[in-house]
């Protein structure tokens, strides 16, 4: 039971993927892997809630005037084996990430780095060279799977990092136990031990929390959130605007290669109803743009509303009354299915005939890259520029779910990245987003809250969007 | 005289409104054997059950039955059972049904012995005693068998042994000798007499006059559920006063003394068997090189002691048991040894009447319908025609239409046997194999039935195989008798020859015990069992 508190062991429950897990921070794509990586390792920078960067291992950094050469100064931090964290470690880590053989999800972000030209200036100073100007480059250093590992590390069965906890024991799919690292640069963490408990089923996590078996649970559904709010044993931590919820219309093929039909869909979706019902009210209205509330998000745009008549008009103009298509959905995200049902109903009211179709959840996101014409999709919080660069640019490949190819957008975005002036950059990015909003084929109807919960005895954990620094951060957590 | 241990007053049994037992008064005294005799269907089984306060479903009992002063009728079933459980031992007419098909007979005996005996030695002794009394050798092999691995007579004796194990004060025995050959029967009589002299009261329900004569102290004669005559056995059986009793006694067959003419059947025609052999799973030899010819128009009797392999042979002929080696031929053409592989028309050519007639009927359908079905299938008659045909042949066997439209459970043992025979006859077979069909019949019926069979053999040119251990009965119509012993045919000769000059010991014993009666009991043959 809750006996963990007496010896200072914080038990945190995450869903797992069984044998798929590993402690290699560079290949981790699961939340639980990321959370463990955060405990064992550290990154150069972290993300604040709005995805702006805050220094971690990197104490400070500065670009040259062209935005292609970055100088980074490291702080005085140590690995668990008491070696200092050096520029060589950073370079080794980034090279490893960029190496195709590692198959790191962060690899593309380092594609523009010229490793031949990059070098360690000293133990604590590092120079990274880019092939193209990018004044938003620091946000790459805080991305998931960019943790710094000691140079030369290839085996991660008992890894050494510079994070607040050191490795004690772990087996894929089983509990992992980490111990406090007293030499942590940010000061010794509060919990003596940290245990990751694998619990896949959401209801089981909630029950385990309420009965005191664990102290923190990751990923709480909207309905359980409601339940937890009324319970004195637990405390809900909801980060609003956590995850973008959207429908991707493929605009590179019929029927949505006709922009009128895209607009018809955009104007027949009832975003309010979707947020109220599919998200049970635990979320924000979407305005067909990613990154609400994040840095560079154009706040001034009017909220897009529902206009069924307009939709009918557009359909008529396009000669596509009674437009029929399948809306791909899956259990990969808890909100997809409800949303699919509702959207099918809403589009039906505008005269379209939409059939939701369930797909297998494990391969869903790769399936929808190529198949179908409309699919539910979601994206957790990311720096806006990362999203635009990796999901919307013409060269984004299959990650550009809608097949959006716009030279105009690409030009605006590239110009923005090479603009030194922060305000100018913001303006260009806003223009690019405005452009994409009408034409990219993404129907972003809402943002679901990101919920975690802690037992009421726990302090020192705050709500934070996923991928941000404070998400799944346990070094300041205390058992009351 | 002592007080009756079991007594019935004003006993009435009704099925719907039809009375099956009327105003019966019976007293059963300790140490006395009361025999109820009567023709098939006269109500003997009904009486036997009623004396225990029981009745078959659909029959209502009224009156009074007192067991040791306790009124049985009207008690709730569980209570009644508890009272009579220890006091009355009942051997039903169809012993196969009371043997649990999935339990080895020995372990059940042991279990029943445990009701009274604590230690395992005591149990073993009790079992051995009961087996001895029931004339079964307590060979360990026999006890390890399942009921289906026993012959009809062995099943009956196992059931008897079970009953005896309980050491009841009253024994109700319903046709205890139907499955027994005359030698074993004589031996069984011995045991029962001994038990009665030790004070056990017995009610014997039988149509077997020989048995009644040898055992009974008191006799009641039943006709249509009424007692038409009663009195001490010695007087009543010697000098019956009622006409019905006289009829019953008159029909008693004697071994024929005049030779019969030999109709020559064409050789090779009809059913024949060549070299039939069968070994049971446990290694017992059941049949060993049997040759048999049943030409049309001839009646072959197969005799032998209980357990000699008669039924096994019959089943092999009928294709119900697959012999290990050997062939069954019909008109010279080999038949498939498995009836399932015989064509539909071939199946009906060889008919077999089961030893346990009741088991061969579907308990849920009226007997008439089942009998008529043969006519429909074998002769291609229409439904109505078939019914009429079936009803008429049943009638000729003494089964009225009202009886035949009942389900098998509501017919008496003898009636079912006759219905089964009717069913087989309707198929117009080339060969008809009857397994102990006379065992359940009273003498009047038996004579009629044999006449009918003889008639059929002659007119319809049927080859008949009559299996029986009742030599007097079969001798009346058989042309030839085969004597089986432990699966081998030890002797076969024309009826008259065999009866007059039996060559083997078995044959001689069979003839002797059947003809004289008294000879066997004195001849020191006790304790022997067909050797297998």
């Amino acid at each position, binding site marked *: 039971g809750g006996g963990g508190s007496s010896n200072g062991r914080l038990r945190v*429950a995450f869903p797992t993927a069984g044998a798929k897990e590993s402690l290699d921070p560079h290949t981790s*794509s699961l939340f639980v892997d990321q959370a463990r990586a955060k405990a064992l390792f550290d990154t150069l920078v972290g993300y604040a809630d709005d995805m702006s960067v805050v220094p971690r291992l990197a104490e400070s950094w500065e670009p040259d005037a062209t935005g292609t050469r970055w100088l980074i100064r490291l702080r005085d931090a140590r690995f668990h084996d008491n070696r200092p964290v050096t520029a060589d470690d950073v370079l080794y880590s980034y090279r490893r990430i960029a190496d195709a*053989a590692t198959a790191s999800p962060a690899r593309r972000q380092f594609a523009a780095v010229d490793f031949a030209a990059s070098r360690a200036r000293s133990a604590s100073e590092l120079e990274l060279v880019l092939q193209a100007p990018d004044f938003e480059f620091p946000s790459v250093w805080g991305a998931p799977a960019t943790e710094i590992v000691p140079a030369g590390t290839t085996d991660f069965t008992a890894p050494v990092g510079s994070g607040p906890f050191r490795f004690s024991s772990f087996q*894929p799919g089983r509990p992992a136990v980490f111990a406090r690292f007293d030499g942590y640069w940010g000061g010794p963490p509060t919990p003596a031990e940290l245990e990751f408990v694998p619990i896949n089923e959401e209801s089981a996590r909630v*029950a385990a929390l*309420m*009965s005191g078996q664990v102290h923190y649970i990751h990923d709480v559904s909207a309905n359980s959130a409601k339940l937890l709010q009324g319970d004195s044993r637990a405390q809900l931590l909801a980060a609003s605007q956590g995850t973008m919820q959207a429908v991707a219309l493929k605009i590179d093929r019929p029927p949505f290669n006709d922009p009128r039909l895209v607009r018809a869909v955009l104007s027949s979706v009832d975003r309010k109803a979707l947020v109220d019902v599919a998200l049970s009210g635990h979320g924000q209205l979407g305005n067909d743009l990613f990154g609400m509330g994040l840095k560079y998000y154009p706040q001034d745009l009017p909220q897009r509303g529902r206009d069924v008549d307009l939709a009918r008009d557009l359909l008529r103009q396009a000669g596509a009354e009674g437009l029929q298509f399948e809306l791909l959905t899956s259990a990969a995200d808890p909100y997809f299915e409800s949303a699919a049902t509702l959207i099918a109903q809403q589009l039906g009211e505008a005269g379209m005939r939409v059939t939701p179709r369930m797909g297998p959840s494990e391969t869903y996101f790769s399936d929808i890259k190529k198949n179908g014409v409309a699919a539910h999709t979601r994206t957790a919080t990311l720096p806006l520029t990362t999203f635009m660069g990796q999901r919307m640019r013409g060269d984004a490949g299959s990650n550009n779910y809608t097949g959006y190819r716009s030279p105009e957008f690409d030009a605006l975005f590239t110009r923005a990245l090479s603009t030194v002036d922060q305000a100018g950059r913001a303006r260009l990015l806003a223009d690019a987003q405005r452009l994409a909003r009408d034409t990219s084929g993404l129907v972003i109807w809402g943002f679901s809250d990101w919920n975690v919960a802690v037992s009421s005895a726990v302090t020192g954990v705050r709500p934070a969007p996923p991928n941000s620094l404070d998400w799944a951060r346990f070094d300041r957590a205390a058992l009351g | 005289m002592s007080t009756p241990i079991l007594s019935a007053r004003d006993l009435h049994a009704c099925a719907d409104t039809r009375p099956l037992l009327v105003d019966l008064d019976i007293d059963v005294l300790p140490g006395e054997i009361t025999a109820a005799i009567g023709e098939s269907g006269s109500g003997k089984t009904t009486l036997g059950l009623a004396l225990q306060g029981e009745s078959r479903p659909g029959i209502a009992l009224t009156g009074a039955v007192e067991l040791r002063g306790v009124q049985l009728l009207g008690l709730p079933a569980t209570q009644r059972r508890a009272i009579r459980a220890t006091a009355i031992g009942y051997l039903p007419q169809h012993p196969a049904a009371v043997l649990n*098909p999935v339990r080895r007979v020995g372990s059940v005996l042991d279990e029943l012995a445990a*009701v009274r005996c604590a230690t395992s030695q005591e149990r073993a002794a009790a079992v051995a005693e009961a087996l001895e009394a029931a004339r079964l050798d307590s060979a360990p092999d026999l006890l390890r068998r399942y009921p289906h691995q026993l012959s009809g007579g062995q099943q009956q004796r196992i059931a008897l042994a079970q009953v005896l194990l309980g050491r009841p004060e009253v024994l109700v025995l319903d046709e205890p000798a139907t499955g027994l050959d005359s030698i074993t029967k004589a031996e069984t009589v011995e045991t029962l007499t001994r038990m009665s002299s030790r004070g056990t009261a017995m009610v014997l329900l039988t149509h077997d006059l020989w048995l009644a004569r040898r055992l009974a102290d008191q006799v009641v004669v039943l006709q249509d559920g009424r007692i038409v005559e009663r009195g001490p056995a010695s007087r009543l059986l010697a000098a019956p006063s009622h006409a019905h009793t006289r009829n019953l006694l008159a029909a008693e067959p004697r071994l024929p003394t005049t030779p019969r003419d030999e109709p020559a059947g064409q050789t090779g025609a009809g059913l024949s068997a060549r070299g039939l052999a069968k070994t049971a799973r446990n290694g017992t030899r059941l049949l060993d090189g049997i040759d048999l010819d049943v030409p049309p128009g001839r009646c072959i009797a197969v005799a032998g002691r209980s357990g000699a392999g008669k039924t096994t042979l019959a089943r092999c002929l009928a294709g119900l048991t697959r012999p290990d080696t050997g062939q069954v031929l019909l008109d010279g053409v080999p038949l498939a040894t498995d009836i399932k592989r015989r064509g539909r028309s071939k199946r009906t050519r060889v008919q077999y009447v089961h030893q346990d007639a009741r088991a061969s009927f579907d308990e849920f359908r009226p007997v008439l319908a089942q009998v008529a079905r043969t006519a429909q299938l074998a002769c291609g008659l229409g439904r109505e025609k078939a019914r009429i045909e079936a009803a008429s042949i049943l009638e000729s066997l003494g089964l009225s239409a009202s009886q035949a439209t009942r389900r098998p459970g509501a017919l008496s043992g003898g009636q079912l046997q006759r219905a089964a025979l009717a069913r087989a006859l309707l198929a117009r077979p080339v060969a008809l194999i009857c397994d102990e069909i006379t065992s359940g019949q009273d003498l009047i019926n038996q004579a009629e039935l044999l006449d009918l069979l003889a008639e059929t053999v002659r007119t319809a040119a049927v080859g008949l195989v009559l299996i029986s251990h009742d030599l007097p009965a079969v001798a009346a119509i058989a042309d030839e008798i085969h004597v089986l012993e432990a699966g081998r045919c030890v002797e076969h000769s024309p009826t008259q020859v065999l009866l007059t000059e039996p060559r083997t010991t078995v044959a001689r014993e069979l003839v002797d015990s059947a003809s004289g009666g008294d000879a066997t009991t004195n001849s020191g043959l006790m304790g022997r069992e067909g050797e297998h």
Partner: protein
Amino acid sequence: MGLFVLRRLGAAALQLAAVAVAVFALTSILPGDTAVVVLGEHATDEQVTALREQLGLDRPLWERFLDWLGSVVHGDLGQSLLTGEAVSDEIARGFATTALLTLLALAVVIPLAVAAGVTTGLRQGSLLDRVLNGVIVMLNSVPEFALALLLVALFALQLGWLPATAAGASGWSLATQPAVLVLPVGVLVSKQLCALARQVRIGVAEADNAEYAMHVRLHGLSEGKVVFRHVLPNALGPAVQQLARAVDGLLGGVVVVEAIFALPGMGSGFIGAVMARDLPSVQGYALVFAATTITLNLLADVTSRRLVPQREVVA
């Protein structure tokens, strides 16, 4: 009997081979492969291709199958594509949890089913029969998750008598925390009880009417012996088959119970393997499941034959 078993074992080998081929074929029909699953949402095509090559997924299907078959013949189930761990180790881990649950559930459900079946079968149509049957059927038809969640809510969250989940514990070590197993076993039992108890019940009701039962009763044999030695053996035929199905179901993994109580057993292991398109693991699980199914069927058939000895005559 010996020959029968031998023949069946021969057939079993063929069946296993057939299952292996079928499962291989089915799994490869499924869209996506391990590479796609491992790389997750935002992988690029080249990454997928590279990983595919690395895992050998680009080789022709039959070649991979033959490879796999070769290693199985040598007693090796191969390695998981996902983790590189030996498939047998992976299965063994889940098996410990599943076997423990199965054993416990059976230890409860068999006596319970027999008791309930006998009690109701002997009193067919009585009030007790109807009530008990109603409860048993209800337990079976209530959605499994709802039953589990309600039990957790009551006994773990409200009353605090029992732990809500296994939370991290698994395998044989669970045996040291019996409290954890009470609720899951309870749910499993309630699901399996119905079919078994009711088959026993109908069998008992029918066999109890038989003459042999009444006969031994009249011999003063105690009711317990009558029921257990005489009525039950004749009543168990279908129940034995049902029991085989129940054990099969339990050993095959009980997905809902495993999920709700966070017990990592074979069920979730198999589903995980299927979802990850981890062919060697899927094959391994499928083989183990098929082997248990076939073994159980064989056992059930042997028992059935024992329960119907008279069949010998017909054979």
